[in-house]
């Protein structure tokens, strides 16, 4: 609970602006590049396989011939948009980007780079952390869209290549009974998750004390705490918005 209070104060300290807009703009662009480059290949890989596996498993479970086979791709689409792309990818995002944010900030703290910024009169928390959070919130939804597309392509490839269903059936399933609110919902979720992962990871890293061992601990805690926060938020958002 005390930790939560410190987290709130930390968030407050971010918006006490000191630097010019152009400085933040440059830093945000920089962070966006970093996030994109670091995570795109992993996202493509994981989501393609997720789509593929979902297709195979759904086909395996649909044993009755009463259900038309295009339902398989419909299930793949719903699973991908609602849960796999935004939520499962958030866990990957926390592992890849969250841990590196916490590790980077933790290292800056213990090697006194943060003190060096403060001596120059820079509000280090807003200078270092705000761009990271904003960049996550911009990039993560884009990555989720990429992941969604890859997942559906993965399903298509496996489904048609192994003869589970024909290309026509797959496309038909993808297009049938589509509620576009699910996309909006997925994007809202992504922005919220990205904020949680970015801010919690930075919080853990920024307040590291001690040495290299503590940086490792901060990095691990960043992943654990942000994953828990993401799952809780997932539950509340589903209750609230669906």
């Amino acid at each position, binding site marked *: 609970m005390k930790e939560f209070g410190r987290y709130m104060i930390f968030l407050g300290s971010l918006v006490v602006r000191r630097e010019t807009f152009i400085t933040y703009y440059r830093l945000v662009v920089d962070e966006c590049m970093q996030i994109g480059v670091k995570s795109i290949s992993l996202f493509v890989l994981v989501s393609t396989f997720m789509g593929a596996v979902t297709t195979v498993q759904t086909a395996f479970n649909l044993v009755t011939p009463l259900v038309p086979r295009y339902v398989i791709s419909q299930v793949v689409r719903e699973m991908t948009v609602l849960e796999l792309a935004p939520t499962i990818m958030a866990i990957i995002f926390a592992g890849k980007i969250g841990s590196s944010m916490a590790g980077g900030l933790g290292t*800056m703290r213990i*090697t*006194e*780079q943060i003190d*060096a910024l*403060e*001596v*120059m*009169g*820079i509000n280090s928390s807003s200078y270092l952390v705000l761009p990271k959070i904003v960049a996550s919130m911009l990039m993560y939804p884009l990555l989720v869209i990429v992941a969604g597309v890859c997942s559906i392509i993965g399903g298509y490839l496996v489904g048609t290549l192994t003869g589970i269903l024909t290309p026509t059936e797959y496309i038909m399933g993808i297009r049938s009974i589509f509620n576009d609110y699910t996309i909006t919902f997925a994007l809202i979720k992504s922005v919220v998750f990205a904020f949680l992962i970015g801010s919690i990871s930075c919080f853990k890293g920024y307040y590291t004390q001690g040495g290299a061992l503590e940086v490792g601990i901060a990095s691990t805690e960043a992943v654990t705490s942000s994953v828990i926060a993401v799952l809780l938020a997932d539950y509340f958002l589903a209750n609230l918005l669906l």
Partner: protein
Amino acid sequence: MIKIKNISKSFNDKSVLRNISGEFDKGKTNLIIGSSGTGKSVLLKCIVGLLHPDTGYAFYDLRNFTDADKDVKSEIRREIGMLFQGGALFDSKNVQENVMFPLDILTKMPYDEKLDRVNFCLKRVGLENVNKKMASEISGGMKKRVGIARAIVNNPNYLFCDEPNSGLDPQTSILIDELISEITHEFNITTIIVTHDMNSVLGIGEKIMFLHKGDKLWEGSNEDITHSGVKELDDFVFINKVMKSLKGTKLV
């Protein structure tokens, strides 16, 4: 000249500094010495404003820094350079970007002028042709030099160094000490150095403040340090047999 008055600081009821007062002269290397854990770094952080003291003030040429409003604070900050223990270089930047960073933040100089200034400072600390090396690629001694270059790039009036020669071999230590001392005299800077290294104390200790467990016990120069009559200081100075045999004699 920097003057401190009655600075006290505690962390969670643990008193680290008690009523420290003193003066640090312009154009001199002022040392804060004492064994590890006596609060030297905490005192330095209170002076530069990284920590807020519980009581007391730091005055920069009669300007009260501790209780200053935002404008005065940032004005004084522009005149401060600081060298951190490990150099504290930004590892995402190369040497040139590191040294230029204070100019980027604190001035509106055009790029060419900044580059000239950066090259001048790097040359002054004995580093040439390393501009494009990343901070992680250079040795400990070089990091300290780059740290010094970054600290002096904006022509500071005040220079702070926390253990400038920790982690360096004795020869490099002495070179770094001499570099800081030369720069202090050359540019007439008020320099405060935190150290527990006796070589530095004897070598460049023009004005010395001795801290012991949070209290200031002695103040003087390296010429007087061997006959201070303060027991704790004697324990600090005469660490080994060779030094003990010199007790009472004049070393500098």
